[in-house]
């Protein structure tokens, strides 16, 4: 199971859209992934523990360095398959390149 994390304002809307879309698409592509969706102000080194790919919306300013691959997943929110596809491709590339499982 590949563990990812996404975050948005209240941890209920945008981040859940990303979570559902990434989990569904990656399953289609044959990967076992689980995406956690949280409120961005709860993001800290502790919540990042065990996370293999970080999927923020744009680039958040954080007080710590993110050490895992970071892929901007904002384009998923446009609800247009053609615009979301590059995000999924990048996630798949990252999984392959880093041999994540």
């Amino acid at each position: 199971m590949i563990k990812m994390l996404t975050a948005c304002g209240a941890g209920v809307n945008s981040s859940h859209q990303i979570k559902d879309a990434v989990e569904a698409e990656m399953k289609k592509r044959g990967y076992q992934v689980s995406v956690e969706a949280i409120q961005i102000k709860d993001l800290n080194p502790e919540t990042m523990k065990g996370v293999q790919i970080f999927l923020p919306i744009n680039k958040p300013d954080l007080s710590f360095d993110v050490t895992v691959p970071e892929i901007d997943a904002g384009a998923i929110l446009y609800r247009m398959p053609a615009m979301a596809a590059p995000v999924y491709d990048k996630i798949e590339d990252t999984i392959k390149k880093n041999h994540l499982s």
Partner: protein
Amino acid sequence: MQTIIHFANVVFKPIIDLGAAPVMLIVLTLIAWALGVKFFRALEGGIRLAIALTGISAIINILTTTYQPALTAFVKSTGIQLSITDVGWAPLATITWGSPYTLFFLLLMVLLNVGMLLLKWTNTLDVDIFDIWHISFTALMAIYFGANFWVATALIILIGALKIINSDLMKPTFNDLLHNNDNPMTTTHLNYMMNPVIMLLDKIYDLFFRWLDRFDFDSAKLNEKIGFWGSNFAIGCYLGIFIGLVGQQGVEQIFTLSFTGGVCLQLFSLIGSWFIKAVEPLSQGVTDLANKHLKGRKLNIGLDWPFIAGRSEMWAAANVLAPILLLEALVLPGNHILPLGGIIAMGVTPALLVVTRGRIIRMIVIGAVELPIFLWAGTLSAPFITSVAKSVGAFPAGVKGGTMIAESTKEGPIEQFLAYAVGKSSTGEIKFVLYAIIGLAAYCLIFWWYARQMKKRNAIYAKELADNKD
């Protein structure tokens, strides 16, 4: 004609009598299905909405029944009339989505958006279907206070159109805040309709407090220091202790209040995510349909506000404003809400971020000055919210009369005042007719002034962009 009415009564009356949750299950499923969503996907949304409605009622019930004795004792011992329970945004959104009118207003807003796109009045396609509830809330509030259905509809068409124009005006600022000029993200969220007022306050700030700007600090660091104290459950806990203490409750009762507060605030946001999922099939259906008819045009896309939630100033300002809000609530004449669920003012700080472009001291000072508007609007809307909650069955029957719910930092406070004035003016009382006319004129005028300021700002952005390309 009589036969039709009789027939409609026979068919619809029993369905409506089932209550809000079953009605919305049926209505949402049918509408999503009609928009081309697969039947079972549409049904999934319908069931999720019914469950979210039922869940939110259960928690409002827990919160109000636990807090009411302490709040009443607090009012009695201090004489401070803070008897309205602040439930935060999730219950308000859920009960608004529990009204069938919301689907009609949604349809209207989609038509308005597509119409404005075709006329080239805007470049933004709004895909944030879920947040239509803010518009519906405004219209329902106007109706509650006496407005005719069509008058309320006209009011939200005006607000809806300005909201969409505002999303175009803000677009270059979002690019600046995101350090990214190549993205279609913008938003039509109602919280940004405070921008004109904030901009006015910002100009005043420029005149008198400019010297404060040099005290700006690193907001990411502050947020790190605040840590878990800013999370939902922690806020629920210490506000429970606070209310218990001022309500002169016993130790056992204070613990109960504290943990119940934590549970409720945590569960409100969890259930919030249920009904966002419930509206998801409908959102995708509407977006697909709109995309099909707008082929080939490069558009900006209106999202929910949090695509800028990565800016740490937003949270730093919300964290600092929370205790200020509590203090203001205690001393503000005419306020009857004790901040609880809405104390982290997510409906307030995004607009501050956009207007000040992240100057944290300005955000805090202007925020503190404008918070009373939110408290008064919340107090004003409490009877309306309580009545809608009762009508969709989301309000506990056991609580004594006079108990009310509201949100201390609900987005669009100015729009709530307008809804109230427009509603009341429909009764024909000349005082309210005047209020409504003056209010609407001032609303449009200040927006017009704000639009001019934003166009000046955007011209500078455009010039910078052109210079960088050279």
